[in-house]
């Protein structure tokens, strides 16, 4: 028993070291900008950089629109598949997994062919059009995470009976989704939303090839040209991701409790 415990702790310690040492090293390096003393100069430079603020604000805006699009697309789809077309679930799951195996660059070249300046739908001819395509592309990239999160949420409630109970009380589809289904899978939707946020904030390929002022290309640019600032940016990016994960954990506590699964 004691030996088993020792090995368990050893494995845990190795895992922790594997995860934290590079992070601590990066953080330590980011503090060395001023010669001989630790300082937050690198952070001050990064946070004070107008390009940081612009690109970060741009990516946050794009992330919000991506989340909205993802929710509007995925929640009704996953709900309808569970309610009326459960036989199509494997097909839809396969489709939602495709972004994991098809590289983002394929989407970009598809965009250029379909929506270039000389095409009948010249979305890429304007900044707003390109932004719209970027949001759609990001929604596609986040699909595996968003769909799975929402589908898992739907699995915890009796979708069919709740829908029928609402229907017989006079509710239409909009009311059913807005007042019965969405509130009961809200935590799952938020999980998907924060995963989407984390993906969009750091994404490079789509933003770079579509030439949009996003945070990902900025990170790459700083990384290629500076010494200490990239380390500070990496730590900031980690903090943002961890912040998102913490928010998911906190919100999970407020999830509506099912009578059958009170805890």
């Amino acid at each position: 028993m004691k030996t088993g415990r020792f090995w368990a702790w050893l494995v845990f310690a190795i895992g922790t070291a594997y995860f934290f040492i590079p992070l601590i090293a990066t953080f330590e390096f980011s503090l060395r900008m001023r010669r001989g003393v630790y300082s937050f100069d690198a952070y001050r430079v990064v946070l004070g950089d107008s390009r940081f603020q612009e690109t970060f604000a741009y990516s946050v805006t794009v992330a919000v629109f991506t989340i909205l699009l993802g929710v509007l697309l995925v929640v009704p789809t996953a709900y309808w598949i569970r309610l009326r077309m459960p036989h199509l679930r494997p097909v839809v799951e396969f489709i939602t997994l495709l972004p994991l195996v098809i590289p983002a660059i394929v989407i970009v070249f598809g965009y250029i062919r379909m929506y270039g300046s000389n095409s009948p739908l010249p979305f890429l001819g304007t900044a707003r059009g390109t932004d719209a395509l970027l949001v759609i592309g990001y929604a596609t990239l986040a699909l595996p995470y968003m769909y799975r999160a929402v589908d898992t949420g739907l699995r915890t409630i009796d979708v069919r009976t709740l829908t029928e109970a609402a229907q017989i009380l006079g509710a239409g589809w909009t009311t059913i989704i807005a007042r019965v289904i969405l509130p009961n899978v809200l935590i799952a939707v938020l999980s998907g939303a924060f995963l989407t946020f984390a993906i969009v904030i750091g994404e490079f390929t789509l933003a770079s090839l579509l030439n949009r002022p996003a945070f990902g290309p900025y990170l790459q640019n700083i990384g290629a040209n500076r010494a200490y600032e990239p380390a500070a940016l990496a730590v900031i990016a980690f903090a943002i991701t961890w912040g998102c994960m913490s928010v998911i954990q906190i919100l999970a506590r407020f999830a509506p409790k099912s009578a059958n699964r009170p805890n």
Partner: protein
Amino acid sequence: MADPFLSIQNVKKSFGNVAVVKDFNLDVGAGEFVSFLGPSGCGKTTMLRIVAGFEEPSAGKVFVGGKDVTGLKPNQRHIGMVFQAYALFPNLTVAQNIGFGLKVAGMPRAEADARIAEMLNIIKLPDFGDRYPYQLSGGQQQRIALARALAPKPKLLLLDEPLSALDAKVRLSLREEIRAIQKKLGITTIFVTHDQEEALSMSDRIVVMNEGRADQTGTPFEIYNRPSTKFVANFVGTLNVLEGTISDAASGTVTINAEEIGLKGKLNGSKAGDTLSLALRPEAISLGRKAGNDSNLTGQIADVHFLGSVIRVRVGVGQSVVSLDTFNSPNSPPPVVGEKTEISFSSGDVLVLH
């Protein structure tokens, strides 16, 4: 029935090649409590879902209050329904659950609040408005579900095995409560159950369903005492079945295990030599000869179960075993297994199953 409130006419329903409901007809009067009783897979829930609008009939029509509702969606029918699995909305409080239908209907807030309070009083849970479903017991949840269904004053109430998920004690008290509320509000109700005791104790009329058809429709008294088919006789209540052979059709004499009994007027055109299944309820049989019973058979005590106030005795009569109950009497000991005995009954109580 002059003007039925609910009329189900020639309804059929198939899923692929499987016919689940086969030519179902029923008229239900206003304020009537009708139960659909039958085993699993007999089509009773499908029929209820057709009335609710969740399933579209393959053929036939459903009328509510004289209006054809066959093509209407569930949210256009103004029907209340209680589900087996409660189906309370977990994210809403009890008051919000009860008020859901009222809000959807656009009822002003003050009026809706008053109605919610009224419903909470009717189900005797006046202080539960702020609780969430997960904080309630199964019985309480089902009462809330009933209040939610009744709050918008529906034309018709559908109960889909609402007591099945509850324990025996709660089930008993809740069925009395449901019936009392239904009588008080005078709402036309269809109740689906596979529990004969529930159906017999609650209903004005029972529809016994078998393989998608209504085998018999009648009052609980009629269904129990005058079953029209072998299935109804077997499904409702306990039944002893004795096999007999007609020895003289004209005089109605039937031989059971080399003994004769008279069943004049009950043989329905059968002829001598035909075999018949004769059914008797346990309460129609007495141990030993009894005044008023015109038929006797001899047998042997096969089993005795002492249940306190009642003694359940099983008597072997030829190849059959007959079950009967006698009241316990402190002055006379229970019968002994292996003992020779006589059973008696009135020929009027014999059901001839064709």
